[in-house]
């Protein structure tokens, strides 16, 4: 007997309601895990979408800035030709086409032609002509025909450079972005064509492109000088804090996206592009906090959906449990009713067949027929009684009276009850009982019924001269163990569990040895109702052993409470 394994299996085997609870728990866990996975996946999706979005906007804004400067450079190139071919009449002949450029290209604020000494020869501004400009203000000047984008100047027009530089408090701050082209005439004279670009032109495009999104954009020079920004108001002309670190992030590429420091405060999702054609850098960024907010918003929806799923699962489990209970009750009620209805006509059959048997003692053939009717009636009565019994256990066991009894007495009672039958079959019986009383809180009649059934079962399989051993011991501090062992033919291995199912008999007894197929099923139900377990196993030396485990004292009470 492998006792520990049986006990272990007894311990983990849950009652029917626990199986349902496990099922609900597993489903709930699956739902919770699914929701958790989706939430985690969505978090990565949000960040990755934001990266793609900032990249897209950075590409758009960079492209716009580059195209604008390309067109501006083209316009300066066209005007340069006028200067080159006009000789001394340059000043007069340049103004009209320059005004035309001004009217068609709205990013030009003004155009002016300056000689190498800084004298403004002609300008689209009437006021600006003949003024002397310090060429140093532009920083580096072009050395060949390639136009140079100068640093941002804090003036609206060139003539403002010569005006009083004092800033009036509260005055509007206006900046210009000079694009300068060098013109070398055939007589080796040098001119500079200066186009002042409106930096707000880039900010306007940033505003239109970004719209109501929570993205922000900054256009700077390579050295980090801010040219335009939207929607945050950064001081134009000043250097972007941390621009060197941003450039470092890109190396050796010209574009990149990362999470870290940007133009705005706090952690940002930043996309940066540096233009190859012009010394410009475009940043588009979104605060990481905004991405988290998106995620939290989504999270709240998922939590809501998850909670709803839990509620639905709980409701469905409750409905299923109620339905199962109701079905079991209806089944038990049906069996009880049908059993009762079958027993009434059986009394007549049994009574009259017994009468017939007595009156036909002198007619053996007829008597045999009455005998067959009587024995068949008896079998049917046993079947009906068992059916009634099993239905009673299902429907009324909760009302059974539990009492404190000595388990040894139960074995002794069964021995006394079955003694005549044992003698008649020449089967020996040995009771192995402890010396001290073993107190058990249980329904004494039902446990007695279990023991009687199991012993009667053993007797059925015992040949004359063989022995049945019945005994009890305590295997755990709170578990009582009855066992009934015989020396019969044993039970086929694959039937060890099935024999406890209703209407299932061992293949060895199917030849009609008198069983109804309900005896062991009744036993199992009674034992389960007590919170215990019953199982069978073969003995290697021959025969079978039935183990009945019952919880002692408090365990019995708990079990009763559960079943009620």
């Amino acid at each position: 007997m492998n006792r520990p394994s049986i006990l272990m299996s007894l311990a983990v085997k849950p009652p029917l309601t626990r199986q349902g609870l496990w099922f609900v728990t597993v489903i709930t866990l699956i739902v919770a895990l699914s929701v958790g996975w989706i939430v985690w996946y969505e978090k990565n999706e949000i960040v990755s979408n934001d990266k793609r979005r900032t990249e897209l906007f950075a590409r758009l804004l960079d492209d716009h800035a580059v195209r604008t400067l390309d067109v501006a450079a083209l316009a300066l190139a066209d005007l340069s030709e006028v200067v080159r071919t006009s000789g001394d009449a340059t000043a007069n002949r340049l103004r009209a086409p320059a005004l035309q450029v001004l009217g068609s290209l709205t990013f030009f604020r003004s155009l002016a032609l300056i000689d190498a000494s800084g004298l403004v020869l002609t300008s689209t501004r009437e006021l600006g002509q003949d003024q002397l400009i310090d060429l140093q203000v532009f920083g580096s000047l072009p050395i060949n025909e390639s136009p140079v984008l100068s640093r941002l100047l804090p003036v609206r027009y060139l003539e403002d450079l010569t005006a009083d530089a004092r800033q009036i408090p509260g005055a509007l701050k206006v900046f210009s972005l000079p694009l300068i082209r060098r013109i070398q005439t055939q007589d080796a004279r040098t001119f500079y064509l200066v186009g002042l670009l409106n930096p707000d032109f880039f900010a306007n495009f940033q505003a239109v492109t970004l719209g109501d999104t929570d993205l922000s954009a900054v256009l700077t020079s390579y050295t980090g000088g801010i040219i335009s920004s939207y929607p945050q108001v950064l001081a134009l002309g000043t250097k972007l804090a941390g621009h060197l670190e941003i450039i470092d992030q890109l190396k050796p590429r010209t574009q990149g996206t990362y999470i870290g420091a940007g133009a705005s405060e706090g952690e940002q999702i930043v996309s940066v592009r540096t233009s190859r054609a012009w010394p410009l850098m475009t940043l588009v960024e979104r605060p990481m906090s905004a991405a988290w907010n998106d995620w939290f918003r989504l999270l709240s929806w998922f939590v809501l959906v998850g909670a709803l799923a839990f509620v639905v699962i709980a409701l469905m489990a409750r409905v299923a449990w109620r339905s199962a209970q109701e079905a079991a009750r209806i089944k038990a009620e049906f069996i009880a009713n049908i059993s009762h209805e079958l027993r009434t006509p059986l009394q007549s059959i049994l009574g009259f067949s017994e009468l017939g048997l007595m009156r036909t003692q002198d007619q053996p053939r007829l008597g045999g027929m009455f005998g067959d009717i009587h024995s068949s009636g008896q079998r049917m009565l046993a079947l009906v009684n068992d059916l009634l019994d099993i239905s009673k256990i299902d429907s009324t066991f909760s009302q059974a009276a539990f009492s404190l009894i000595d388990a040894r007495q139960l074995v002794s009672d069964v021995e006394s009850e079955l003694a005549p039958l044992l003698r008649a079959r020449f089967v020996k019986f040995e009771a192995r009982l402890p010396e001290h009383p073993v107190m058990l809180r249980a329904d004494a009649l039902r446990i007695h019924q279990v023991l009687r059934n199991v012993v009667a079962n053993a007797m059925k399989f015992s040949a004359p001269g063989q022995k049945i051993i019945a005994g009890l011991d305590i295997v755990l501090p709170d578990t009582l163990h009855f066992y009934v062992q015989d020396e019969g033919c044993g039970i086929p291995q694959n039937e060890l569990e099935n024999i406890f199912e209703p209407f299932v008999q061992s293949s060895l007894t199917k030849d009609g040895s008198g069983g109804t197929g309900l005896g062991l099923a009744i036993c199992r139900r009674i034992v389960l109702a007590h919170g215990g377990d019953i199982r069978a196993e073969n003995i290697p030396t021959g025969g079978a052993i039935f183990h009945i485990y019952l919880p002692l004292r408090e365990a019995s009470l708990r079990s009763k409470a559960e079943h009620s």
Partner: protein
Amino acid sequence: MCSLFTGSRAFRRLVPRPWLAFLLLLTALSSQVSATTTEARIRDAGQLKVCIWPDYYGVTYRNPHTRALSGIDIDLSHALAADLGVDLVYVDSSFVTLVDDLLSERCEIGMFAIGAIAQRASQLTFSNSYMQSGIYAITTKGQRQIRVWGDIDRPGVVVGVQAGSFMEPIMRDMLTQASLVVVRPPMNREKELLSGRVDVFITDYPNGRRVLDRNDSIRLIAPDIHREVLPYAYALKPGDQSWLVRVNQFVDAIKRDGRLERAAQQHGMAPMVVK
């Protein structure tokens, strides 16, 4: 003529004498009215000729691609023709040619939100006003230093106005620190603004709406209180009091029955409606 009608006994028996006199009077009056009033002339011709300026966005605008007319005064001119029970004919006009068009009777009414300024009022008759507009500032979304009306009049700000518009004298009086630039053709206010040569320009509501609808980078700034309000009305040829009364009846009716409100809502002119 009298003897012709009264001489017949049978006729006298058919029509009693006082009724006859009334009928004669009515006939005489109606023949006289049809010869002199604009309304009668419209009824006789069976059509109402309305002068419109087909470039007036939201008021009387002809879509250059579909040639379809739309705007508040297109809806209201249909309503006027329906009230008179005549067909509608549009005559292309403009603010420059309107006076000539009305005086030479090329059209019976000018319906394109015509500002009732003194210069026009001296040559034309205006109906009761049905819309009015204050002045508005237009700037770009990239210009974040000018957010409210109060930000305009400060040092360094350049304000643009269209040459000859009624805003020019108003702004000249209003601005104390900002400088005023009068924009003349071929330059236009929108390009001056986008290039940064002006920081804001001042316009009326219909033009502001037009610019806003055309350019996404434009922002409109409304003053806290409209101190300068110009009424808009329908222009008529002077000298026909009955036609003026009829047009005023129409203006009162569209204000009362919600047609003006509905048309204004549909074309984005609701803030201009005179209740």
